[in-house]
C-alpha cells in the first residue's frame, strides 16, 4: 500500500506506524525528520517554513514510493511531509517501509529519504533573529541520492 501525504497538519506517528504494520509485513523501518534549532552567530532557528509545488510534489513522492515498493517488494511505503510554518523539534518528514525482512525495509527507507531530498519540490525558509532566508541546497545531498541510481 502506497501512502503519500503533503499537509500542514502535525504527523501522528502512532497512526502512521499502525497503518504500515498491516498487510503482512515482518519488518517495518521508519525515519522521522525533526526541525533543527541549528545555532549560528545570528541566533537559532525560530521558525522553519516549507513551501512546495502542489500537485507536482505529490506526484514526485508517489513515483519514489512506487519505485521503492517494486525494488524491495514492500507491503507498505509511507511518505508524509509537512508544509507551512514549523518550530524546532516538530516533525517535518516521516517515512515508513514494510517488508518481509529487515534488510529490504531498512534499505528502502534509506532510499526514500535520500531521494526525497533531491527529487521532490520543497523549499525551506528559516527565520532567525527576526530575519528570513531561503535554505541553500547541499551538494552532499545530491551525492547521497545519486548512489541509489547506480
Amino acid at each position, binding site marked *: 500500500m502506497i501512502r503519500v501525504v503533503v499537509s500542514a497538519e502535525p504527523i501522528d506517528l502512532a497512526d502512521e506506524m499502525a497503518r504500515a504494520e498491516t498487510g503482512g509485513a515482518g519488518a517495518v523501518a521508519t525515519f522521522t*525528520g525533526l526541525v533543527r534549532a541549528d545555532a549560528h552567530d545570528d541566533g537559532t532557528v525560530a521558525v522553519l517554513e*516549507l*513551501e*512546495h*509545488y502542489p*500537485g*507536482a510534489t505529490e*506526484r*514526485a513522492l508517489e513515483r519514489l514510493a512506487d519505485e521503492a515498493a517494486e525494488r524491495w517488494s514492500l507491503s507498505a511505503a509511507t511518505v508524509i*511531509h509537512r508544509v507551512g510554518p514549523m518550530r524546532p523539534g516538530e516533525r*517535518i*518528514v516521516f517515512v515508513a517501509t514494510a517488508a518481509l525482512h529487515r534488510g529490504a525495509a531498512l534499505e528502502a527507507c534509506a532510499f526514500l*529519504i535520500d531521494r*526525497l*531530498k*533531491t*527529487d*521532490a*519540490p*520543497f*523549499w*525551506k*525558509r528559516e527565520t532567525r533573529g527576526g530575519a528570513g532566508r*531561503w*535554505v*541553500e*541546497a547541499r551538494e552532499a*545531498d545530491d551525492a547521497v541520492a545519486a548512489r541509489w541510481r547506480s
Partner: protein
Amino acid sequence: MKVLYFAWVREAVGVGEETVEPPAGVATVAQLIDWLATMSDGHAAAFADRTRLRAAVDQAFVPLDASIVDAREVAIFPPVTGG
C-alpha cells in the same frame, strides 16, 4: 502557457504564477527564461544566475535545455531543499 515560480524566484519576480504567450522561436526552458528576463527588473533579477535555477515542464523535473513545445505548465525554481 502557465508559468509558476517558487521560493526566492517567486519573491524576486513578485508573483507566484502568470500566463504568458512567448513568441515563436522560444522552444526551450532556457529560451523561455531569456525571454521572461526582459519582462521586468524583478524577472531579470530572478533569472540573473542560471546555475541557481531548476525547472519542471508539466510537473516533471527537466534540464534547462528541455523543450517547452506544447507544454501547458512550466515551473522555475531554486534547487529543492525538502526532507
